[in-house]
């Protein structure tokens, strides 16, 4: 594992742990609900709210400029800068999007990034690699090397020494700057107030010492009033840096006596995003919580995963504020594991939005070909044409319930087997499911009509996915309960059809006695069971299986359906995080067939079992 990977991996994991600790004991749900409601309502009324706030800011002496594009914003700022030569700048993703620093540097102005992380990457001529921690990919050694080479110092690889140097270096810049540029996290319309959060104090200094202040913000940063804004700020701080309050929350209403203040409000695709089917994405507050928890991000970092906006949400933001080719590339890295969704303070359904985004970007041929071939190999659906595998269209009439074993005595329970159990590599697991049905659910009817449509949905083949759902809806209509042995299919159908969809492993627990195993048994939590009722699977299985504790049980395995074909190296890196400390004889139990196949790649066939087969085998003993 390279040093680069380890830096990102360690930093993101540390933030996640800190955040979990902070959130313990807090009523997070109500904080989120209130903040989400405030944000949604404000975005709906953005036009009116901007009008109100702009009028008030102008009355207070702040010049407001609405820019349609990054180019017009840059031009305005350049004109108002006048002969300013030294400019101190706070961290701002919006200005990164505008490439404002580069624009001003071309005019032979000295623009100094003052956020420590931004300053470091500016010296290294790199782009930020995280929304809130731009130098997350660098070690203290990397920073020391840069400082010693560039400034002729002889500093050790020590965060304190390096920070002290930056303090001395930047203090003079603050004192002598002609102009300051900062971003804003929120603009409240009533009373007109700019809010900007920071820990370092560089925002406070960049904004108060120079004579000219430029506050750059996005059209989507508007809020109705200051009432409730503290809740939004607390949620932002907690999600971004695991703090309830950052060291400084700065507020601006009027210029100070020595100041001229300009507020630049950038559209650059934001209005289009807010009016599109992707409008949920406009609620993003750029906290980066989704990145810290993303199994792909923690392996590849931000530079692989987008230019300015990273991760799954980054693909969407880039689609509207950047160019299409970038968005498509970023979106392809997303595992669709949905790990990010519970972490998002604004409740943005990132994976679902990316499914829609994928619909508008067809995969390049070199990616679609192996996926199609894999689809034929692992998911060839019985009764369908030879070339119809996972990711292809289902037959137009697919309501047949064909099965080698079909029970008709009661129609209250059905078992929807799912396409993954038709994979030849899953023959033993399929047999286990059929035997389980015969033994524990003798009255259940097996629904053996193939795919639930989830692979189509997350690949962006929405019309096919909808067609599958319509077929399944009719198919399951007569039944009170539908059991699924596949956790991904369960999570997908449960979201759409509610309580009648149950996970087979959880349903069979009550029919079994607890069995102790001689060798350790570990639980692997599939990503799709990290939200909803599936989160209780381990507790349920614990009634039957005595699980040994495994530090990495919740960690993604990198399977992601066909992801390991699309991005094999990333997938393998993610998988390698499951390996440490796993020696000797043991069994890993999981309910996801895709995870099961992936885990077998490193642990071998004999060490990884499907939950249903494992419990059946234990009961039989």
């Amino acid at each position, binding site marked *: 594992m390279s040093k680069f990977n380890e830096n990102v991996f360690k930093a993101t994991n540390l933030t996640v742990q800190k955040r979990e600790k902070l959130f313990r004991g807090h009523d997070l749900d109500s904080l989120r609900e209130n903040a989400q409601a405030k944000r949604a309502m404000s975005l709906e009324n953005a036009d009116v709210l901007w009008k109100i706030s702009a009028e008030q800011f102008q009355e207070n002496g702040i010049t407001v400029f609405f820019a349609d594009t990054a180019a017009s914003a840059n031009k305005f700022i350049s004109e108002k800068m006048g002969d300013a030569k030294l400019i101190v700048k706070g961290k701002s993703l919006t200005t990164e999007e505008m490439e404002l620093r580069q624009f001003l540097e071309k005019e032979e102005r000295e623009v100094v990034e003052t956020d420590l992380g931004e300053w470091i990457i500016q010296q290294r001529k790199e782009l930020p690699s995280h929304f809130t921690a731009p*130098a997350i990919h660098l070690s203290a050694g990397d920073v020391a090397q840069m400082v010693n080479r560039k400034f002729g110092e002889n500093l050790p690889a020590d965060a304190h020494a390096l*920070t002290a140097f930056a*303090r001395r270096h930047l203090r003079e810049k603050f004192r002598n700057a002609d102009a300051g540029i900062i971003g804003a996290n929120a603009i409240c319309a009533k009373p007109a107030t700019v809010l900007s959060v920071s820990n370092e104090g560089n925002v*406070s200094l960049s904004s*108060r*010492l120079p004579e000219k202040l430029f506050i750059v913000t996005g059209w989507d940063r508007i809020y109705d009033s200051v009432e409730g804004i*503290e809740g939004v700020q607390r949620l932002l701080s907690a999600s971004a840096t695991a703090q309830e309050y*950052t060291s400084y929350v700065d507020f601006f209403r009027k210029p100070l006596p020595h100041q001229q203040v300009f507020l630049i409000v950038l559209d650059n695709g934001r209005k289009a995003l807010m009016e599109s089917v992707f409008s949920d994405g406009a609620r993003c507050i750029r906290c980066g919580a989704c990145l810290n928890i993303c199994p792909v991000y923690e392996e590849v970092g931000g530079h692989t995963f987008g230019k300015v906006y990273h991760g799954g949400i980054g693909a969407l933001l880039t689609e509207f504020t950047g160019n299409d080719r970038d968005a498509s590339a970023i979106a392809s890295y997303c595992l669709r594991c949905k790990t990010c969704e519970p972490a998002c303070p604004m409740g943005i359904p990132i994976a679902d939005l990316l499914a829609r985004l994928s619909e508008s970007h067809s995969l390049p041929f070199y990616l679609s070909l192996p996926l199609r071939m894999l689809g034929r190999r692992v998911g060839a659906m019985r009764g369908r044409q030879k070339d119809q595998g996972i990711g292809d269209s289902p037959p137009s009439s697919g309501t047949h319930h064909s099965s080698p074993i079909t029970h008709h005595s009661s129609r209250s329970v059905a078992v929807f087997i799912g396409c993954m159990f038709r994979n030849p590599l899953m023959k033993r697991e399929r047999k286990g499911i059929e035997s389980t049905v015969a033994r524990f659910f003798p009255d259940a009817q097996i629904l053996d009509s193939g795919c639930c449509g989830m692979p189509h949905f997350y690949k962006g083949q929405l019309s096919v996915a909808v067609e599958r759902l319509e077929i399944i809806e009719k198919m399951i209509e007569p039944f009170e309960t539908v059991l699924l042995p596949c956790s991904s299919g369960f999570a997908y159908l449960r979201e759409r059809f509610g309580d009648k969809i149950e996970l087979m492993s959880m349903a069979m627990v009550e029919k079994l006695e607890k069995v102790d195993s001689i060798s350790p048994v570990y639980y692997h939590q599939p990503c799709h069971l990290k939200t909803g009722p599936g989160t209780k699977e381990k507790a349920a299985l614990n009634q039957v299986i005595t699980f040994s504790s495994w530090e990495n049980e919740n960690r993604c395995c990198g399977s992601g359906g066909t992801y390991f074909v699309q991005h094999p190296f990333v997938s393998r890196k993610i998988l390698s995080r499951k390996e440490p400390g796993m020696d000797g004889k043991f069994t890993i139990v999981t309910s996801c067939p895709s995870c099961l196949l992936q885990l077998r790649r490193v642990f071998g066939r004999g060490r990884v079992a499907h939950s249903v087969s494992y419990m059946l085998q234990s009961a039989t003993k």
Partner: protein
Amino acid sequence: MATEWHQALQSQLDDFIEKLKDRFQRQSISIVESLGFVPGAGAFVSIGSRSDAEELFLSEVVIILCRNQLETYEASLAGEFSQACFVSAESKTADIEKKLVSGVHGPKECIFVEVQ
């Protein structure tokens, strides 16, 4: 920023400040008043001029006098000010390997003194 209550407290604070001066080896210390404070969270400070900002952000130690207790800082937002800052801690960063370092740009220490 001086006010009557501030002056009355001055003598009581003198000893305290002398101790601080020893402790911080006579580094620069500034004292600012807050408009209100939220116990356990921080204090809301109005910034009306460049020198106010310099006092709050350029000394090595800042002492914030707190006497008007609030439940949330939003109560302060209802009032009049040009610019302000809710201060909850010293200037700090974790940008290098997530190691927390105080005093990256502003005060290395921030002391809240509750005045009853």
